[in-house]
């Protein structure tokens, strides 16, 4: 950690951005010094992403100045920012799925030979660049062939390669697993030592303390303060973010259901599977109990959810609901049985951007009721308002288009969509991804509450401590096949990690 103050690379003063009905950013300052990793923290909707968008010129600012190396800049778009030495990885992956990995990495600055793009050189360079991130992939393949995690790494690689002075990462670790996070950190430290200024947004406080040198905290679009990480105790940081002292009790104390898992299961999967998608797995889902799913990225957890919800049709095994065999051919079949599913990709599979929060919340319920039994406007408003309040969705009103909410609040609205259908089984894929500390605890409490009210829950999460905390059973997946089932007191983070790592040769040679 640098002892003396290094020179200021970027100084933003009084940045302001007004959206209709929301002042997303209100006179915020940010100072970045050479060779530091600077954490930008705040609750969902605090304005972190907005600040980043203003720095890169992805959005117009309504006020304020940005000074880079003593010169005021006015980026007219991300292209201008890159020329000024600023590169960013945005919160949602903003790469182009139709291009190859290499094309994504070198878009706009492809190596050329005789005026034409030199593909071979580009692919070679791309391969070399990606190897620094621990990715040994064929860079000439289309980006869409790769998982979210890999895409996230590619986006980071691109930004790192582009950034001359400032590198901005908006929740880069949200979809990475621990090993990948470690690799990324090592790289970021190297870059810092080379003098780069790095902005790092995350909701994982552990990562803040493991990596960053300095912290800027935002709340409700205003600057709360800037501190050195070393001088700021965790509790104080959290209260800066929340604007009040956090409740003492940690939300991650293990609190499984008291009488869970006894009696006949609501839903039972017996050897359910689909060729080339996921190997046969068993799962019992009991009313009032949580089944957790753990595993590395790409271990096939999402696929189990797809089969349970009828998004993909199983070609082996049997699904039993209430003891009766059923076949799910589409999500509608599953919904009819009282299932609900919050998918992991909010933007692509979750929200219906362009429609209001209200419409997004009532969509599943209305679809369940059919075309003719329309929920009246009054009913819709009542529902929306109830869940906005219940889940503390931060929005001026229910009529705001959902895509204008911050990521965490979108997640809550999706949860509301399913709660409104009053499901018997709720499947949640990464429900806490990209959610701030406060909301994280709220969501976990909410899940426990739902469970206690007798709902069956199937929760897929990459946060092992979290899974360990509230699950009554944990299904461990690896290489698209189940490798273990933990029950009762045997559920501890360490046990889950062991199950994931142990005897990797048995996990199936998929």
């Amino acid at each position, binding site marked *: 950690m640098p002892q003396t103050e290094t020179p200021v690379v970027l100084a933003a003063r009084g940045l302001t951005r007004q959206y209709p009905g929301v002042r997303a950013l209100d006179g915020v300052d940010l100072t970045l010094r050479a060779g530091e990793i600077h954490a930008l923290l705040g609750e969902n909707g605090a304005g972190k992403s907005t600040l980043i968008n203003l720095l890169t010129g992805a959005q117009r600012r309504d006020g304020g100045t940005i000074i880079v190396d003593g010169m005021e800049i006015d980026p007219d778009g*991300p292209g201008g920012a890159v020329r000024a030495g600023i590169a960013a990885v945005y919160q949602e992956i*903003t790469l182009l799925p139709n291009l190859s990995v290499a094309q994504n990495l070198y878009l*706009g600055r*492809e190596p050329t030979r005789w005026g034409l793009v030199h593909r071979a050189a580009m692919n070679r360079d791309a391969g070399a660049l990606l190897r620094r991130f*621990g*990715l*040994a992939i064929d860079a000439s393949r289309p980006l*869409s062939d790769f998982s979210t995690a890999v895409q996230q790494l590619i986006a980071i690689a691109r930004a790192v390669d582009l950034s001359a002075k400032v590198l901005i990462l908006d929740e880069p670790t949200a979809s990475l697993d621990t090993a990948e996070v470690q690799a990324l950190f090592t790289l970021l430290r190297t870059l810092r030592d080379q003098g780069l200024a790095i902005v790092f947004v995350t909701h994982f406080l552990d990562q803040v303390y493991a990596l960053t040198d300095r912290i800027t905290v935002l709340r409700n679009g205003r600057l709360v303060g800037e501190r050195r990480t070393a001088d700021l105790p965790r509790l104080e940081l959290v209260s800066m973010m929340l604007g009040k002292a956090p409740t003492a009790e940690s939300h991650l104390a293990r609190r499984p259901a008291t009488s869970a898992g006894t009696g006949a299961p609501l839903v039972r999967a017996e050897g359910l599977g689909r060729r080339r998608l996921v190997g046969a797995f068993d799962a019992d889902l009991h009313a009032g109990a949580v089944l957790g799913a753990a595993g*590395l990225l790409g271990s096939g957890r999402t696929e189990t959810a797809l089969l349970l919800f009828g998004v993909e049709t199983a070609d082996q095994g049997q699904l039993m609901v209430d003891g009766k065999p059923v076949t799910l051919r589409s999500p509608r079949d599953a919904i009819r049985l009282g299932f609900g599913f919050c998918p992991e990709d909010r933007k692509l599979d979750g929200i219906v951007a362009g429609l209001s929060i209200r419409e997004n919340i009532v969509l599943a319920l209305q679809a369940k009721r059919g075309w003719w039994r329309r929920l009246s406007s009054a009913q819709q408003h009542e529902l929306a308002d109830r869940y906005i309040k219940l889940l503390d969705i931060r929005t001026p009103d229910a009529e705001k288009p959902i895509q204008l909410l911050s990521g965490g609040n979108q997640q809550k609205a999706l949860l509301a969509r399913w709660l409104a259908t009053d499901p018997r089984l709720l499947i949640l894929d990464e429900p806490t991804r990209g959610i701030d500390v406060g909301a994280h605890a709220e969501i976990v409490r909410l899940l426990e509450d739902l469970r206690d009210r007798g709902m069956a829950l199937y929760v897929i999460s990459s946060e092992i401590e979290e899974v360990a905390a509230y699950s009554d059973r944990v299904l461990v997946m690896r290489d698209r096949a189940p490798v273990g089932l933990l029950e009762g007191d045997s559920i501890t983070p360490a046990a889950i*990690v062991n199950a994931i790592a142990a005897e990797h040769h048995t996990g199936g040679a998929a």
Partner: protein
Amino acid sequence: MMGRLLNTRTLPLLATVVVFVLIYAVCAAQYPAMLGLRVLGNLLTDNAFLGILAVGMTVVVVAGGIDLSVGAVMGLTTVALARLIEGAGLPPLAAFALVLAGGALFGAGIGAAIHVLKAPAFIVTLTAMFLARGCALLISTDSIPIHTAGYDALAGAGLALPGGGRLTLVAGIMLLTFIGGGILLHGTRFGARVFALGGNAHFAQLMGINTRSTTILVHAFCSLMAALAGIVFSLYTRSGYALTGTGVELDAIAAVVIGGTLLTGGVGGVAGSFIGVLIQGLILTWITFDGTLSSWWTKIAIGALLFVFIAVQRLILLASTRYGRSGAGPGAPTTPHPAASTPVARSSAPGAAAPSAP
């Protein structure tokens, strides 16, 4: 090897080629005269203007747009040329330069309007179609023959093929345009920008692409091609007529789509469009060779054959994508699957990937 050949990008193209060859074989079996180089030469010459339009259209469609004005711009070009050469006495080459520049400018205007007004390309280019056609009619409502000696020489130029066929200058221009278009789209930085724009304009912008200049250039290129098609058409008919190319934009779009380029943008290429043009020409040739179809059955047959092509193509694609989950067909709405099922080599060993409890 097979896997590399049959990836999601080459597959639609391959399916198109297969369908083309199949249908050609069926035609030739029925009418052996269709096999000769003469018919093949005619196919190239008669569809030269459509091919050139299809090159421009491919670029626009790959960029996520559409251009309904190309037929009208082509018509406008032919009349303008006739007026410039016959009326103003300009040498043909000077007139060509003038209309090409005019075409590019017109397209740049379309692109600028799309960008500035944030209006859909469909509507802006529809307006441009009215405008171009209207201007052409204002220049002349009659068809104007061009009899300048040099023009006849240009129009008549060509290589004799064995069997009475000819590879004409206009066919040559079309082939060169396809090659040039292919290089532009698949080999240059500009081409990469076009694909980026079509993939997702907003993301492209966030990645530092100047969407304004790209939109303008793309439409300038398309209208430039329309003007070139106009030149070719005027060489082909040695005349200028305001209503030339009515409805041709739909043929060009159909050719592009049959060729596997997605109207949603970001996926495609000119090679497929070339086959698409040939397929359309083949349909018409077959119908004339048959010669028994009434006016109405002609239309029904064209529609039905279009359907058969697309259906067969989709079946081929469906059959082959059974062995891999990804891949949208031609004419299929894109619903990219985020998690395709290709296994990926990771450099970190599985043991090392095991997370240590934080």
